[in-house]
């Protein structure tokens, strides 16, 4: 199709506009992370880029104090960083493994036909609506402020998402490909992990990334189910206030930059799959 120059210009204008809206806060976060204290506290002279770039903010959240700052932190980023990584990864594993196995059973074996809808019901109301009973339960089984307690709730809350996503991917796999492997003599289990899983690998990677991002960015569940030991990054970020300095925006920005690294790295790692999507060249209808 041939497009006129003005249409192209219009298209690029909107692309740029959308990018600007999305990227503006990101840019602000990154630049602020490198501004020294006076530059992010000043009211009069806010600048786009740091005048005197510094590692001060990063130093502060990693060591609890920094040169040139009078305030200090009783808690550095290392604990919350580990807590976030552990609980997000474990929660993602739970959701992806359970979601993959159960959706495969539903799609391929026609089992539990009511499962898709009942799983969806888990997402029909905000998790907060059931958080009080969950908190009671978690307290009862001693899961509050533990890595497994938080991982478990992450797994449960993101399971519907993983289930539905994997379900659509499995539905795309032609049953004949599995039949071909079965005729060759493979057991059901072998067909699943040697044929089906490799075929849906791009879908699996995409699913894992999205679930990980959901877990990684959670604030509410961690706020309610952790107290001290397993406080995660988002909750920790909210505590970055001091009586003297008020909101510590520079530190928060530095924390934001660090928190953005895992999802971005993960995303880059599976970029090939994300872009490719699912194509099944064998199926010629």
């Amino acid at each position, binding site marked *: 199709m041939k497009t006129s120059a003005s249409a192209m210009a219009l298209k690029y204008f909107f692309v740029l506009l959308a990018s600007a809206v999305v990227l503006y806060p990101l840019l602000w976060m990154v630049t602020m992370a490198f501004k020294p204290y006076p530059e992010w506290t000043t009211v009069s002279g806010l600048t786009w880029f740091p005048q005197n770039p510094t590692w001060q903010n990063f130093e502060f959240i990693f060591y609890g104090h920094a040169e040139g700052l009078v305030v200090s932190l009783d808690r550095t980023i290392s604990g919350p960083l580990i807590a976030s990584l552990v609980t997000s990864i474990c929660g993602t594993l739970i959701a992806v493994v359970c979601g993959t196995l159960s959706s495969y059973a539903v799609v391929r074996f026609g089992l539990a036909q009511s499962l898709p809808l009942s799983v969806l019901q888990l997402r029909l109301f905000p998790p907060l609506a059931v958080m009080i009973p969950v908190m009671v339960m978690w307290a009862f089984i001693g899961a509050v402020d533990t890595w497994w307690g938080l991982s478990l709730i992450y797994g449960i809350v993101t399971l519907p998402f993983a289930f539905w996503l994997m379900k659509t991917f499995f539905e795309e796999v*032609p049953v*004949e*490909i599995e*039949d*071909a*492997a*079965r*005729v*060759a*003599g*493979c*057991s059901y289990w*072998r067909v699943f992990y040697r*044929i089906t899983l*490799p*075929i849906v*690998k791009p879908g699996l990677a995409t699913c894992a990334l999205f679930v990980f991002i959901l877990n990684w960015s959670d604030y509410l569940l961690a706020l309610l189910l952790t107290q001290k030991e397993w406080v995660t990054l988002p909750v920790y970020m909210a505590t970055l206030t001091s009586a003297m300095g008020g909101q510590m925006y520079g530190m928060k920005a530095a924390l934001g930059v660090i928190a953005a690294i895992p999802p971005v790295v993960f995303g880059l790692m599976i970029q090939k799959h994300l872009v490719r999507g699912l*194509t*099944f*060249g*064998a*199926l*010629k*209808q």
Partner: protein
Amino acid sequence: MSSIQIQNVTKRFGDFTAVDNISIDIEEGEFVALLGPSGCGKTTTMNMIAGLEDATEGAILFDNQDLGHVRMQDRNIGFVFQNYAIFTHLSVYKNLSYGLEVKKVGKSEIERRVKAMADRMSISHRLDQPASSLSVNEMQKLAIGRSAIVEPRIFLLDEPLSNLDAGFRAYMRAELKVLQHEFGQTMIYVTHDQIEAMSLADKIAIIDQGKLMQYGAPLDIYNDPQNRFVANFVGSPRMNLVDGELREEQGALRLMLHGGAEIRLDGQVKTAFTSDAKVHSGSFGIRPQDIYFGEKRADNDIRMQGKVEVLERVGPKRLAYLQVQETMFLAFDDQAQLRVGDDVPFYLPSGASMAFDLESGRRLGGQ
């Protein structure tokens, strides 16, 4: 190599009966075609033979042994699927070696057999490439090679040629015939193309709406269809089949066609129509090549008069569309004597004509 006995097999999906009480006996080394229109239950039948689906009723035996309890991996079946079902995430080599690896064949043996099969299918130059990069024609060859390499006791092919272009299809048809001789395998071949079935198979099973309509050698089916469906389905161009009411007046039996014309029945076909007194509406069948023009050749041949509407070239001959009132007859203009618009007499030889009961579709007075 095995013989196969399909005994009163029925398959239901919920309330829907996909395969309805089918029985077919297939001898060792035979090439049998399952022929029928799309959706008639051919693939379902194949899946049951392969053991991918269980029959709701009836049994399928290999060499008179029930395979009900035999595990898939011990059945040793080659299955070429309708859509090829190539493992696109693997290389061509891995596709070919897959069945052998599952069967734990030795490494050097696998390599030898993969090479030989790739040569046989002329895809050797593609062995290291991903299977997803193959063309449709190559995928077809790979699908056949992948199934043949394990030397299965029976070989099932589900519409293997239906996605190919005409040229390659003719080539593959010949190739399959050669392959079958090489393997000497019992083969079941599904197709909706009657020419394919006719030219390849030792025997043809014609299926319609899950029911077996006829099972026999191609020529027997062609010459002696047991019902209206088979008569209509087999043969190219199709048999003329005209429907009407039977009327008897002063000893003369006539078929009053729904289009307004009539056929004065005589000879064998008259006997056939009268063989069952309960039949009141019938279908008269005659193949285009049996109709003739000019002089009447036998006493009880039936004379008709029709207008030449269209003349169509079919190979060296011309096919004439003859309009008799609202009814159209197809006939070969064997002596190149007709012109469009002519009103000509033509004859339906009684001995070559067939009689069917219109209600049940059953052949009347068949041999």
